[in-house]
């Protein structure tokens, strides 16, 4: 006990001097483990980001003739144009000087910000959003089952009072704009939407609005 171990790396205590050096049977595995974990990390990182995400969408069939154009209630029509701009109008389209005597449709402009598109959609689609929120509450408190929830949400989105959205794009609109809009519709619980062709009268309106 009186000995003081100086702890210098090179020398051994005087009692060890006569002993034969014992060879350890163990190999230092640290570098191997390091390497293994490095590889493991690499493969884990690369494999998870590989799978692409996707958005399912149905496109409408080509209409056989213009007369078959369906009348939709509670419809909001978006027209995408150059420089990420979005125009919209609510209800049916009336060209200037139509025979029914309705005022001509004018386009409103909006944008992808929170106060623009999101506010507009939530406002127009309030009944469905409230319905879906209520269902989500019920699901959380375990009042309804998972499958029932899914069915009821689909029903609510497809109900008669729910908002219908028509998406149209002119030749200067980007694909990204259309995807962003569809994404926004999904967020705002709009179940009925379609990407359709533009009417010539609408195209004129958009061109006039864009030139301003």
């Amino acid at each position, binding site marked *: *006990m009186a000995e003081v171990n100086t702890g210098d790396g090179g020398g051994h205590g005087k*009692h060890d001097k006569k002993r034969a050096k014992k060879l350890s049977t*163990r190999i*230092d*595995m*640290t570098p*191997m*483990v390091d390497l*293994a*974990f490095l*590889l*493991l990390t690499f*493969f*884990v990182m*690369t*494999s998870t980001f*590989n*799978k*692409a*995400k*996707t*958005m*399912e*969408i*149905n*496109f*409408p*069939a*080509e209409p056989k003739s213009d007369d078959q154009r369906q009348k939709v209630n509670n419809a909001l029509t978006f027209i*995408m144009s150059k420089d990420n701009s979005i125009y919209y109008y609510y209800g049916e389209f009336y060209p200037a000087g139509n025979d029914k005597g309705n005022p001509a449709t004018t386009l409103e402009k909006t944008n992808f910000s*929170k106060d623009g598109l999101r506010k507009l959609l939530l406002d127009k689609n309030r009944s469905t959003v409230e319905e879906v929120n209520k269902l989500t509450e019920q699901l959380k408190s375990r009042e309804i089952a998972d499958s029932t929830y899914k069915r009821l949400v689909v029903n609510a989105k497809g109900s008669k009072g729910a908002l219908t959205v028509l998406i149209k*794009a*002119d*030749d*200067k*609109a*980007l*694909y*990204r*704009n*259309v*995807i*962003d809009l*569809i*994404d926004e519709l*999904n*967020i705002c619980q709009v179940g009925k939407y379609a*990407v359709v062709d533009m009417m010539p009268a609408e195209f004129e309106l958009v061109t006039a609005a864009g030139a301003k």
Partner: protein
Amino acid sequence: MPKIKMPKASPSLDMTPMVDLAFLLVTFFMLTATVRVSEPVVVDSPSSTSDKILPDNVMMISIDKFGKAFFNISNPQVRISTLERMGEQYKIQFNDDEKKRFGAMTSIGVPMDKLKDYINFDDSQRQKVKSPGIPVDSTNNQLGDWIQFGRIEAAKLAKSEKDKAESAGRDFKYEPLRFAIKADGAASYIAVQDIIKIFTKKDIYRFNLITNLEQEAE
């Protein structure tokens, strides 16, 4: 030297189980990792909040920034038989080696008359070649033919696999061919719409639009 020896706690742990586990995982990930073959086109797909995962059995049309179309089918067997059918249609003979190479390739974006050369290039040459995209004009609608034959061959393969499974008494899980569109966010929407019209003319209305998952929550 004290008379009673204290049991010396070894500072080195036994790492064998950990190493075993680590190597097991490394092996697993190495085997499951798919070799990413370089695509002839860079597509920067737009982002969305959708978190659905792309199904495995897909026919994918990539559309780049300039509206050029590229065609790809995930199943190699279907790729090869589609190539045979396209060869018949356009009077081009492909030998077995070419078919095999085509089966292992990714998207193609060359018209039929250049396809033979394109298949025979090696990888480094292929990367240098600028793909002009598959013709989609109404007079020379090669993409339409690719879609048509790809769809028929996929259905044929599914049928033969179903028969095989049924005769062996196994269950067969039918996975329908899905149609994926991977377009660049900066592509004009009209270019994408033209491609979609080719599909809708063939009574295909359901698509998977490929997007990136939006990172930050708003």
